[in-house]
């Protein structure tokens, strides 16, 4: 861990202004990931701006009938908020599939989106890593890659994004509101995280000095037919090998609208609108689900340890769509898979 200076920001403007002036700054809120990374010498910020006192901890109705979740709302508060449980149960479920109660009590909405990959090599400064030290190489490609990506990888990086919450947000087409030196803007969640390409050190499209202020959920009608199915190497407290967020709007036996996002398989929550369209207006059958899965995974590429994730993802997609269509979402407390 390095030495750093610390500023407690009293306003969003102050936080943005201070951050913009300093390229080595990091915002800190719950700190559940940043502190670990600092202890491992992966993150070495010279300055921390504590944003926990900013007034970003409310969940509010939007004029359009959606919800706006402040960036500092904890994962726990969001998951158990009655409005979210009632209207966006997919989000609640995805949050509860992740981490532990202790971590969810501290982790925030904005921080969850900005958590960094769990790639073994990224976490170990004794090894090369293009994400940690650009240009040093990616030993994961030929090394241990059980937890790595099968979609959207590059020759420079095969890391995955670890968030469960973000996968649900992708399916719900949330907007990420940010404030920065150039004012405020809203970024669709699908454009928020990026693929590694030849700049794997950059996780998101946030610009320097920008701070997440809120995540907005548009009005939605997915509270009956949804699921968050997370498959992992133990039944709790592990990052996803594959996770699937599904939100369906059903009309009779047919799917009127389908949203599907995958976690644990790519550098960002993975959406495939073409595959989703295969369901629109069609009856919810297993064959259809298989067609959707095949479409999503047609370009999937496995490595030595993680090739099994392609088949696993196919199976998970089919199961998750079945759960959602049947209106029997996966429980996050009873670990038995439905």
């Amino acid at each position, binding site marked *: 861990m390095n030495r750093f200076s610390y500023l407690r920001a009293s306003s969003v403007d102050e936080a943005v202004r201070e951050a913009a002036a300093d390229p080595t700054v990091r915002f800190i809120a719950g700190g559940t990931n940043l502190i670990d990374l600092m202890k491992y010498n992966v993150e070495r910020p010279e300055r921390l701006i504590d944003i926990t006192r900013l007034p970003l901890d409310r969940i509010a109705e939007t004029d359009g009938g959606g919800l706006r979740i402040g960036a500092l709302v904890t994962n726990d508060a969001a998951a158990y908020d009655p409005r979210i449980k009632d209207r966006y149960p997919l989000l609640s479920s995805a949050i509860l599939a992740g981490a532990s109660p202790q971590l969810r009590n501290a982790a925030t909405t904005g921080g969850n989106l900005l958590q960094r990959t769990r790639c*073994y090599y990224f976490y170990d400064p*004794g*090894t090369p890593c293009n994400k940690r030290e650009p240009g040093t190489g990616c030993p994961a490609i030929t*090394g*241990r890659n059980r937890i790595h990506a099968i979609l959207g990888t590059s020759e420079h990086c095969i890391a995955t994004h670890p968030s469960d919450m973000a996968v649900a947000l992708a399916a719900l087409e949330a907007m990420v509101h940010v404030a920065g030196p150039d004012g405020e803007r809203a970024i669709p969640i699908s454009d928020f995280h990026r693929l590694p390409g030849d700049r794997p050190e950059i996780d998101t499209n946030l610009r320097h000095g920008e701070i997440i202020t809120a995540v907005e959920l548009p009005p939605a009608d997915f509270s009956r037919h949804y699921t968050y199915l997370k498959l992992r190497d*133990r*039944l709790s*407290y592990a990052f996803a090998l594959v996770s699937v967020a599904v939100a369906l709007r059903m009309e009779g036996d047919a799917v009127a609208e389908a949203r599907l996002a995958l976690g644990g398989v790519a550098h960002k929550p993975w959406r495939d609108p073409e595959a989703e369209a295969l369901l629109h207006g069609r009856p919810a059958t297993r064959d259809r689900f298989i067609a959707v899965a095949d479409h999503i995974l047609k370009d999937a590429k496995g490595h030595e340890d993680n090739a099994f994730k392609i088949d696993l993802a196919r199976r998970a997609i089919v199961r998750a769509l079945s759960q959602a269509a049947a209106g029997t979402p996966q429980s996050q407390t009873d670990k038995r898979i439905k």
Partner: protein
Amino acid sequence: MQQANAYIGTPQNRVDGRAKVTGEAKYAAEFDAPDLAYGIVVSGAIAKGRIASIDPSEALAVPGVLQVFTHENRPRTAWFDHKFRDETAPPGSPFRPLYDDKVIYSGQPVALVVAESFELAAHAASLVRVAYETDAHMTDLDLRRSEAYVPPKKRSGVKAPPSPRGDAEGAFAQAPVKVHGEYRVAIEHHNPMEPHASTVVYGEDGSLTIHDKTQGAQNSQSYVSSVFGLSSGQVHVVSPFIGGAFGSGLRPQYQLFLAVMAALELKRSVRVVLTRDQMFTFGYRPLTIQTISLGANPDGTLVSIMHDAIQTTSPFEDYQEVVVNWANLLYHCDNVKLTYKLAQVDTYTPIDMRAPGAAIGVAAIETAMDELAYATGVDPIELRLRNYAEVDEADKKTFTSKELRACYQVGAERFGWAKRNPEPRSMREGRELVGWGMATGVWEAIMQKTAARAVLTRDGKLEVATATTDIGTGTYTILTQIAAETLGLPMAAVTARIGDSSLPKSPVQGGSWTAASSGSAVQKACQSVREQLFKHARQMDDSPLANASIEQVMFADGRIRLMSDPGASVTFAQAMQAGGVDRIEAEEKASPGMLTNMRYSGYSHSAIFAEVRVDEELGIIRVTRIVNAVAAGTILNPKTARSQIIGGVVFGIGMALEEESMLDHDLGRFMNHNLAEYHVPVNADIHHIEVIFVSEHEEKLNPLGIKGVGEIGVVGTAAAIGNAIFHATGKRVREYPITIDKLLG
């Protein structure tokens, strides 16, 4: 009538429970010292080569940094290898931290940064610049397999495979039924909750009081004395509480060396705590490639057992454990051939991990036996009964006691085994396939020479002391029970003191031998106090016991009573007053009986039953029920013993389904070196675990009939789960852990 102070064999709460939950119990890194300095270890990045240059200047420039120790400025230590050998060292040249510029494994400590505060030391450690010249390394056992060798020098206490008997190859070739397979258990790291740590308190006279995370305070003490050339009086190791160890604390680890070195050089107190990732930079449970061939008659009776193991060790030491001796110990067979070889990989030396050898060897054998059950169509329990070993055939000895048959019977009844349809995939509940499997567990009942002291004072308090540790097993509690019962005192009047190198000599805590060894020593010391006390009581004026022999009296509630007339009694205080003493002290040694060991084999046994539910499509496995029936002689405390078995079973579930230290062979480095990615079972993975202690009369091993319960809970568990998975799915996986990819693949 319930005898007063009859504690042995009764469920008792941990005497140290309150101290542990209130935080009063202090662990190695929690001891404070005036002017304490903090050391942080800098870990090496390459697997093999040399340190071309090491530049501490940036670190040294940080105000508050006291010193950066490297191979270039380390103080002189002992010259000869034997000075670095500890009580449990395998043959070879023990690792010497900061010895020279050679790098021999990835994660090797290359510097120790010592500073005024933990934070400063951590910061400065990140500023030490190390440049390496790399040599080619090899960490892949498969590629070293052809170079495997029989260890030329045997490790003390580890039985080599017995010589072949009969003609195993010929019998296998002609056997009507054959099972042949290769079995593996992944590399595991112990990962106790408490990381390794040493707080070295530097005394004004230069003496050291060391709080070390160790399974043997005296082992650490003698290591430090011999490596640093100190007299034993200058080094005092005090380790009253250990937050789990599972074998990782059997040898003095490098943080002890580094903390002592820094304290001696700086002449001040120093603490060094390893980080979780550094917990992956010393010993581990070695990768073992096991090949098993079982030949049998159509009725399942074995005609040939061949079991070969090739195991990793380091280039500098020949680690050894007992992997292949178990099959013939459990099963009668006239044609047996067992081999055990090592192959060197560029890692640290493996170190014993809970049920070393047996955990993996029995996992393989009991998986193969299940395959034989299916190959012959004989029920798995019936198969084991048909091959039941009545004697230790390899050593030609009889067993001191062996209630394994009862384990099978009681466990099967409790589990409901009779209702099992042996057909794979025959049970289903909703989307889940249900499987029932079983396996046998076995572990040697070992006793080691141990000394203990007992001191009775006139206020009716008894203190018993021996140097052994309590790694969470319940040693404090069982020693208190034994002492209280032997002298007829309430447990509250007894204090057990352990974990201190100045106490009577005890071996490291391990091998499930502590209860038998330190328990016997404490009992003997208390008996000696009893005799002295009785002598004083008889000599008292008008003593009602004057004509009694010690067999005619009982010790209860602080009194000596005549059995024939319980009203006639003498209090301990009266007896001591009459004898003119304020305290009665005795030190005794308990040793294993040589004659017993020559004539008998002592083992604990278990039958373990597992129920799994498998989501076939997704490969998700849940272990919903375990019944473990254990025969381990006298169970001193059914409550703490049950906890031991449950802990062992959970350990076994980890081995069966989750635990794997992943080596990157390109880098020669363990990569999942944290508890997020090295998976041990969490609460959600654990369902019903039932422990049954089968009554077993044991009188030969030691006076109390103790066999120990520290390891037996692990042994067999992985196989029972693997066998249940086969029953559920029809898929046989011979590589543990059985993860999703292996099940779907």
